[in-house]
């Protein structure tokens, strides 16, 4: 069977993996999550430009790790015993908050910083995986009708972004025709002005086209006070619930139950608002076995890690003081391994046309 998996399934799967990564700095577990993400993306992305953008997210993740390390060397708290880079330290005067710059870099502190960076980098990579596996355009199709104004902005942004890259290439080539003798600032303006104008024109044209084709039409009859009431109650409930979950002194009843009730009310509000924007879907993206399986595999990883967090929180971290090899949290690791199942158990996506070169030729 060849078809696209429902985009929401990929996003839920990726978000649960991102959440799992957020729970840990254990390098073994982070490496496992990265491995699962890469394996599934390589197995199930299509040939669209979004599929190819996964590499960019990998680069972004690496940049985050490096940035975190650089910040650590500059201003971080350099704890530990093993010196790896002896640097002089500068003490800023007290009016600058008494920050200490540089100072001897020690292995434990640097490792801790790198792993924190890696945690964030892995979460970014998970978002990248979702983008590569489910084109944002397909996700927007399942966007709630009530949020059509935000939806319009997103469609425009998502559609115009590739054009932006195209205009940059085109204008840079055109600059050669004017001799390309511009100085730096002038050169930047010469590139930025036409590109931005071009992109703005395109965005407006697209928004006008969407409007002219009926995007966001409303029924004449408003839904009365149900929608605002549900939305307001829902948001209030969500706020109280989040407070309850985070603050351990509040009664438990004020935590999760209120949060869930609030979210349900929010969804109800969205649904109610969506009914005033009539819209049908030409080919509904099917939601069946593989979608359930994908989402479930992500939740298995998250739940397993959450259980380990409750039972043995130390095993999800990196023992730095004293420095030891990280533990291997078997349950969490098995859970993450389950999340690799979509790489083989989901349908193969249809091959998108692979003619980017023809487009380049037309530029």
């Amino acid at each position: 069977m060849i078809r696209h998996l429902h985009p929401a399934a990929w996003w839920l799967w990726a978000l649960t993996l991102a959440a799992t990564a957020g729970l840990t700095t254990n390098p073994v577990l982070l490496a496992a999550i990265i491995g699962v993400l890469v394996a599934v993306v390589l197995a199930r992305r299509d040939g669209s430009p979004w599929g190819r953008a996964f590499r960019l997210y990998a680069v972004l993740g690496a940049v985050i790790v490096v940035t975190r390390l650089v910040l650590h060397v500059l201003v971080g708290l350099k704890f530990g015993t093993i010196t790896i880079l002896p640097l002089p330290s500068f003490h800023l005067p007290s009016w600058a908050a008494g920050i200490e710059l540089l100072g001897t870099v020690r292995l434990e502190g640097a490792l801790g910083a790198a792993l924190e960076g890696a945690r964030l980098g892995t979460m970014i990579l998970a978002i990248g995986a979702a983008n590569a596996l489910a084109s944002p355009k397909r996700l927007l199709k399942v966007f709630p009708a009530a949020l059509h104004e935000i939806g319009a902005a997103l469609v425009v942004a998502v559609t115009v972004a590739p054009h932006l890259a195209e205009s940059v290439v085109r204008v840079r080539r055109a600059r050669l025709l004017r001799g390309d003798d511009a100085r730096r600032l002038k050169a930047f303006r010469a590139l930025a002005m036409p590109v931005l104008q071009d992109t703005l024109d395109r965005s407006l044209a697209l928004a006008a086209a969407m409007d002219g084709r009926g995007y966001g039409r409303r029924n004449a009859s408003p839904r009365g006070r149900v929608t605002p009431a549900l939305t307001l109650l829902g948001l209030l409930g969500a706020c109280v619930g989040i407070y309850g979950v985070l603050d351990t002194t509040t009664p438990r009843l004020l935590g999760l139950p209120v949060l869930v009730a609030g979210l349900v009310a929010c969804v109800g509000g969205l649904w109610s608002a969506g009914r005033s924007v009539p819209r049908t879907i030409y080919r509904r993206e099917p939601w069946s076995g593989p979608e359930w399986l994908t989402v479930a595999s992500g939740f298995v990883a998250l739940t397993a890690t959450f259980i380990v967090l409750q039972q043995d929180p130390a095993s999800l971290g990196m023992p730095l003081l004293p420095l030891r090899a990280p533990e291997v949290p078997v349950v969490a690791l098995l859970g993450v391994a389950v999340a690799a199942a979509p790489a083989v158990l989901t349908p193969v996506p249809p091959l998108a046309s692979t003619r980017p070169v023809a487009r380049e030729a037309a530029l």
Partner: protein
Amino acid sequence: MISLRQLTIRYADAVAPTLRDVYLEIDEGELVVVIGRTGSGKSTLLGALNGHVPHFTGGTVHGSVVVAGRDTATHRPRDLADIVGVVGQDPLAGFVTDTVEEELAYGMEQLALPPATMRKRVEETLDLLGIADLRAAPLRDLSGGQQQRVAIGAVLTTHPRLLVLDEPTSALDPTGAEEVLATITRLVHDLGVTVVIAEHRLERVLQYADHVLDVVDGQVRSGSPAEIMRTSRIAPPVVALGRWAGWSPLPVSIRDARRAAAPLRTALSLNPASRGYGHGPAAPGLTAHRVRVDYGRVRAVADVSVAFAAGRITALMGRNGSGKSSLLWALQGSGPRTGGTVRLPDGSDPRDLKPADRRRRVGLVPQNATDLLYLESVAAECHCADADYGHATGHTAALLETFAPGIPPERHPRDLSAGQQLALVLAVQLSAAPDALLLDEPTRGLDYPAKAALTTTLRALAAQGHPVVVSTHDVEFVADCADEVVVLAEGELIAQGPSAEVVAASPAFAPQLAKVLAPHPILTLAQLQQALPQGDSR
């Protein structure tokens, strides 16, 4: 169907209203062609029909626009989406989805049609437009003509009663344009759709029109094609011929003109046109030898060898995507070239030069001419060009004044008309005094007077001994302007020769006069006037 009452539209910062006191009634099932110079208010008139003006553009509207009983004052474009379909110049800019089938369904989804109806209408529309085999194709990979047909199909699926098209064929090659126009006329005749279409190249649509609206300085004159064409400032060649020959009624189609032209053809065979190509062989100004351009595994230009003569204007023709742009960029030296050589008369290869020096030898005006402009005013652009080449201040401005007189120097380049923008870029590029000049699709969006001005400019350059190469789809422009024609197909050179021979021989590329006067090799009215001096057998 459409009724405009005392419509006056004025944009916020405009001195004068763009449209003034327009009264108009358009009946169901009519094909109405809107003509007018660039900046005359054509686009505003079209935009007013679905409420795009003023809901999207801003501006003050007096009077009323009522389409199928709905007033645009109270209905936004989205509320008119089920009765008005709008197709713009650049189909790609209006596509919301990624594939043909999704795009056709998009409008119906917004109108909340039941899925079963959508499936049926998508199939019908695919067949109606002859694009059934493209249903799953990504929109970006289609040719220009196919894209424009998909764009029309995408608004047709909602069964609009009015179709508004703003220059739907301006970016298309002659064959692609024919496809699109054939589709439009079929809609009018088979489905009774009312069509309002704006078009610069009147020769393509006039024959199909029931009514013509002539927009002059914000005022709209309505009438039958023959009636409006009698006095219009904008006229296709066949009308110009009819006016010159004094025919009544004025022919607007090739068929009518050919029937009226029988005496002309007889007169022509009596004094055979002595039109040779009086130039004789000319020295090559720019020589390409086995030029090849590859993009990855796509071969855009395949071993093209051609010499562009100094002092001649050569037209480069061919389908959309046949490699014209790639060849021009390779000739100039700034674009990629995988193989072959390009030589200037002194034996140097423009690619080996630095960009600044290259520009002094070969100038190129790219397809999106405005890519070259980035300053806030015309004067600043001219100053910048002067400074680049150490000219005295005012050199470029003086050049510009000869191409397009009267452009206010403080105007922002983006606010100029297409013709004025082209003139500005041309002036900037010519300030480097290049030996050879290349132009990529310069006639896009130009009206007849602007094209005539461009022809004059290019002729003057050629007369100074520069080789000029123009890629274009516009056969009438080629007939008027070019000495020689080079035709590319799939990156290969398939025809080359004097324009009369190459252009007249092909049914797709033949200009109107050649069709009217065949078998006589006459392409333009000027040639005819030369062949038949005054008073001869009118």
